[in-house]
C-alpha cells in the first residue's frame, strides 16, 4: 500500500463452490468493480458436486471437466481465489470486517457472502474410523471412494437417500455386490411420495442391489484396521469391504454463529438472501429461506438450482439492486439409467396423481394440495417434468382429474394463470 486513499476492501465470499462462485460471477455481471475474494478450504479450483456420485464415480468424467471456471476466467474477472485455507475467526461491524484463515492470512472486507455449504452428517457408531468407511461430499471423498471401489467385491451403503442410491447404482454397474441399508421403512423418504420410494426399491433390486429397509446399524466391524462388515441390531453382519455413509448433511453454521447471525437449521435469510446482519448475505446449502413457492414456512434446499439462483439473488442484494427470489425449485438424480426429475416442492401435499407406467420405468407423480398443483416427480418422463416446471413458473395449473390419463399429454391440459384482477382488457 502506498499513501493513496485506501480503496474499498471489497467483498469476501467464504466458501468456494457452486454458490460462492456464482455470487462472484453475478456481482461482476452487475457491474461491481471493487475487489472480490473467494476463500475456500479445498486446495483446488471450484468444481461441481453432482457428478461426484454419478459420472465421476462411474469413470466417465475427470476432475478437469468438473471445474466450474478456468483459472484464467477468475483472473480475467478480477476474482481472487484463496484456496486451501479455511476461515476460522471473523468479525464484522456492518461496515468493516476482517477474517483470518487457518494459515494466518488476514482478509478485510466491507461486504460478506457466506456460501459455506453443508458437511456430511457423521454417523456416531463404533468402527466408523476403519479404513474403507467414508462419506461422499467432496472431491477428496470421491477420489477415496473410487480407489476403494477398485479392489472391493462387496459394498454397503448406509442411508437410502439420493447420494447413497446414486453411488449404489454406480457400484452395481461395476458388478459389485451392493447392499443398501436404510433405517426408515422406505427409500428417499424425505423427498418423495411412498409410491416413488417403492418404485426405487424395486428398480434397484431388479438391477441386483439388495435393499434392506427398517434396518438399524449398530456399528462397523473390521480386521487390521479395515472394514469387513456392517453390524445390524439383530446381530447379523452384512459383509462389506467398502462402506459409504450417506445419511444427509448438516449446514455449516460456525461462522454465522461467530457473527451472531440468526440460525435455525441453517443461516436464516429472507427472500433477498439477507441475513440478520446488514451487509451479510448467505446462499446455497447453508441457508434457510422462506418457501419460494408459497411463502409459508422456511425451507433449506440442497440443490444446484438453489445454490445458483440464491447466489444470484445474494449478489444482486450486495450490489444494491435487490431482486426477490422467485425461482421454481428443481432437482434431478441420475441412478443408472433412471433419470429422476423433480420440480416444485411437494411438502404438505394431500393428493397425488400417477401417470405413465412404473413397470416400463417411465412415469410421473403429480402432487396437489387442495386441488392446487405443488410439484412433480418424473422418472424418465422429461415432457411431463418440463411441462410442470413451466406451469409452476408461470402460475399455471393442471387439473388433477385430467392428469391421470397418460394418453393425454400434460402440455395440452395446462390451464394458464388467471389474469390478475383489473388486467382484463
Amino acid at each position: 500500500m502506498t499513501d493513496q486513499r485506501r480503496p474499498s476492501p471489497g467483498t469476501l465470499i467464504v466458501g468456494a463452490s457452486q454458490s460462492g462462485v456464482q455470487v462472484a460471477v453475478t456481482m461482476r455481471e452487475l457491474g461491481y468493480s471493487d475487489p472480490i475474494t473467494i476463500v475456500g478450504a479445498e486446495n483446488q479450483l471450484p468444481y461441481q458436486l453432482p457428478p461426484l456420485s454419478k459420472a465421476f464415480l462411474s469413470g466417465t468424467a475427470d476432475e478437469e471437466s468438473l471445474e466450474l471456471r478456468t483459472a484464467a476466467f477468475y483472473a480475467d474477472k478480477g476474482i481472487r481465489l484463496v484456496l486451501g485455507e479455511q476461515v476460522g475467526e471473523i468479525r464484522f461491524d456492518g461496515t468493516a470486517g476482517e477474517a483470518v484463515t487457518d494459515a494466518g492470512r488476514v482478509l478485510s472486507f466491507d461486504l460478506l457472502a457466506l456460501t459455506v455449504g453443508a458437511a456430511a452428517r457423521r454417523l456416531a457408531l463404533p468402527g466408523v474410523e476403519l479404513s474403507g468407511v467414508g462419506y461422499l461430499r467432496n472431491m477428496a471423498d470421491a477420489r477415496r471412494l473410487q480407489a476403494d471401489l477398485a479392489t472391493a467385491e462387496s459394498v454397503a451403503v448406509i442411508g437410502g437417500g439420493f447420494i447413497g442410491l446414486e453411488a449404489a447404482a454406480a457400484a452395481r454397474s461395476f458388478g459389485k455386490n451392493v447392499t443398501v441399508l436404510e433405517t426408515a421403512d422406505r427409500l428417499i423418504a424425505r423427498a418423495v411420495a411412498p409410491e416413488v420410494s417403492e418404485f426405487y426399491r424395486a428398480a434397484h433390486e431388479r438391477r441386483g442391489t439388495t435393499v434392506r429397509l427398517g434396518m438399524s446399524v449398530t456399528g462397523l466391524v473390521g480386521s487390521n484396521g479395515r472394514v469387513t462388515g456392517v453390524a445390524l441390531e439383530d446381530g447379523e453382519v452384512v459383509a462389506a469391504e467398502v462402506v459409504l455413509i450417506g445419511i444427509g448433511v448438516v449446514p455449516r453454521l460456525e461462522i454465522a454463529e461467530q457473527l451472531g447471525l440468526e440460525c435455525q437449521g441453517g443461516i436464516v435469510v429472507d427472500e433477498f438472501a439477507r441475513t440478520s446482519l446488514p451487509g451479510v448475505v448467505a446462499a446455497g446449502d447453508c441457508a434457510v429461506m422462506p418457501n419460494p413457492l408459497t411463502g409459508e414456512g422456511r425451507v433449506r434446499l440442497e440443490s444446484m438450482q438453489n445454490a445458483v439462483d440464491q447466489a444470484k439473488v445474494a449478489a444482486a442484494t450486495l450490489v444494491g439492486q435487490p431482486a426477490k427470489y422467485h425461482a421454481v425449485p428443481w432437482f434431478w438424480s441420475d441412478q443408472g439409467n433412471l433419470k429422476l426429475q423433480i420440480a416444485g416442492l411437494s411438502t404438505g401435499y394431500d393428493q397425488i396423481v400417477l401417470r405413465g407406467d412404473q413397470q416400463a420405468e417411465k412415469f410421473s407423480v403429480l402432487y396437489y394440495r387442495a386441488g392446487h398443483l405443488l410439484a412433480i416427480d418424473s422418472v424418465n418422463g422429461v415432457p411431463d417434468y418440463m411441462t410442470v416446471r413451466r406451469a409452476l413458473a408461470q402460475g399455471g395449473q393442471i387439473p388433477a382429474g385430467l392428469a391421470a390419463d397418460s394418453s393425454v399429454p400434460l402440455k395440452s391440459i395446462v390451464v394458464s394463470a388467471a389474469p390478475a384482477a383489473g388486467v382484463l382488457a
Partner: protein
Amino acid sequence: MNTHATESATAGSTLVAAPTIRYYAPGGVLFEIEGRIGDSVMETGVKNGVPGIVAECGGACSCATCHVYVDEASLELVGAPDDLEDDMLEGTASERLPNSRLSCQLRIQADFNGFTVHVAPEQI
C-alpha cells in the same frame, strides 16, 4: 449422447491442435475458445465465461438452460439429438429450431475446429 462417429483420440499426434470453438453470445459478440477434446461445448463455454449459457444442471441433460443454435456448416458434425435431449429441447425458453441443441450434449472432437454455435437468447 453424442452421435458423431469420428475417432476422437489424438494421442501421439502433435499435428492436431486443440480445436477452436466459436460462440456467438446473445447480442452477437463472438468468443473463440480452444476446446479440450472430450469436453462438452457447454463446459468449454461456461468455464471460459461465454455469457448466456446458464447450464444449471452442469451437463446432466436435466435443465435445458444450455440451449444453442448450431451453425448450418457445423451441423453435420453433430447429427441429431437423442431421445432424452429431444424431449428436453421441447422445454427450452427460446424457440426450438431445427438446429437447436443442448450444448452439454455436444462433445468436442478432433475435427471440431471452427465449430460454431449461437447461444439462445433466453435460457430460463
